[in-house]
């Protein structure tokens, strides 16, 4: 009885909103805050939508969360940036194939006063060691996002076991890239960020890029169709159409064309071996 009432209410709500929900052909893409908040999607999606009539609905989360969302079957395509986590996702059978799409790089942001004296360096591992040595405030995403995974990998490579060695200088915020930058800006801390979000970020305060250009700061994005075998309702044709477009010359051109203040944010690399 109670279930029936609940069911009827749900149907009522669905009907009430059906004019907005089912009017269009659409796919749901689980992606990262960096692609959404940098404004990339707002730049490239209208091109795809105009060409195919398929609306792309982007839910922007950290990479770890985005992959979890797809594991539950709530997305048709994932578009994220943590290659090893993506390969695990495919190996578990949740995704069909990972295709490289584009890359940019991470940058180490910090206050211009630079208490750890790392400005201008090219060696990210050395910079992290200096930050720890000076016990200067460092803001971590702490949210299993692609950037957070990259940060943890860098600490490991620098020979620091951050889990055991972190002190009160290491602030684990559990937040998105933007909020982490806001936090760093207000406490004049260091923070690892993707260049795209940094370029579009407005509340910089005293922050600036201090370390960039290290090979290890490479940040690559991949796209995966969620397996229609795991989740029957995955819109595989429309999802595949989106993936095909993103890695096509057209899609790659749209990505390369996105600039802020004349600076290109993402560099297409579809079809490259090992990317």
């Amino acid at each position, binding site marked *: 009885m109670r279930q029936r009432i609940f069911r009827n*209410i*749900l149907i*009522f*709500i*669905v009907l*009430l*909103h059906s004019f*907005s*929900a089912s009017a269009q052909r659409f796919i*749901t893409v689980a992606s990262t*805050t960096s692609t959404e*908040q940098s404004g990339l*999607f*707002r730049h490239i999606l209208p091109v795809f939508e105009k060409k195919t009539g398929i609306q792309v*609905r*982007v*839910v*922007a989360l950290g990479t770890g969360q985005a992959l979890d969302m797809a594991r*539950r*079957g*709530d997305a048709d395509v994932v578009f994220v940036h943590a290659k090893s986590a993506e390969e695990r996702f495919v190996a578990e059978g949740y995704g069909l194939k990972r295709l490289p799409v584009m890359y940019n790089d991470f940058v180490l942001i910090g206050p211009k006063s630079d208490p750890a004296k790392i400005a201008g360096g090219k060696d990210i591992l050395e910079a992290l060691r200096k930050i720890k040595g000076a016990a200067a405030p460092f803001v971590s995403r702490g949210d299993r996002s692609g950037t957070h995974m990259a940060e943890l990998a860098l600490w490991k490579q620098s020979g620091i076991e951050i889990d055991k060695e972190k002190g009160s200088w290491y602030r684990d915020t559990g937040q*998105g*890239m*933007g*909020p982490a*930058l*806001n936090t760093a*800006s207000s406490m004049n801390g260091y923070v690892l960020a993707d260049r795209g979000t940094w370029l*579009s*970020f*407005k*509340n*910089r305060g005293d922050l600036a890029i201090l370390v960039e250009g290290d090979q290890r700061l490479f940040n690559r994005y991949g796209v995966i169709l969620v397996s229609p075998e795991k*989740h029957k*309702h995955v819109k595989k044709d429309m999802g595949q159409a989106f993936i095909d477009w993103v890695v096509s010359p057209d899609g790659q051109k749209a990505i390369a064309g996105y600039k802020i203040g004349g600076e290109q944010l993402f560099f297409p690399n579809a079809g490259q071996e090992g990317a």
Partner: protein
Amino acid sequence: MILGFDPKLIEIVLLSVRVSLTAVVIASALGLPLGAAIAVGRFPGRQALIVLLNALMGLPPVVAGLVVYLMLSRAGPLGDFGILFTPAAMVVAQTILILPIVAALSRQVIEDAWQEYREQLRSLGAGPLTAALTLLWDTRFSLVTIVLAGFGRAAAEVGAVIIVGGNIDGVTRVMTTAIALETSKGDLPLALGLGVILLSLVLALNAGAYWVKEAAQRRYG
């Protein structure tokens, strides 16, 4: 974006209003009769139900959002509806949030009136159903305030709608999630501007409701 009354902004404002109004209508349609029934009815477990409803008024939005998310997720029991990340899912979450507020507060108001008029209603031979309906009508002006409180809670919360709606541009982006997004992007002036619009909206609605209530009270006593 704000000063130009950008169509995108208007779309966001309209979606906010539509989602929260739908939620408040459904919550009232269920919550007011429920409140009246608990107020005049006597049944086992009544006190426990009252305590539960009162406690649920403090339900954290993010918990409500998470529960609705797990229910509506494709892997969840109601996944076949496919309404996750649609305005409908946001309506469900907000309804769950404000139903306890409407039910618990209306229960209190109606029970107070019931204490006052019980003898009178009984002497007129009114059964529980007639009594409940009469009291709902008699306390209608107080109930308006309760419904407004429910709307305020629905329109102001971000924790639930951002989880079940996904803050999708042009589909499920409402005022509060847009404010959260602009704050993330570090565009604090724009976020604050959107906040001012949201506040003005709630203020205008409350002023309107107050005016209607005053006018009605003057006319009908």
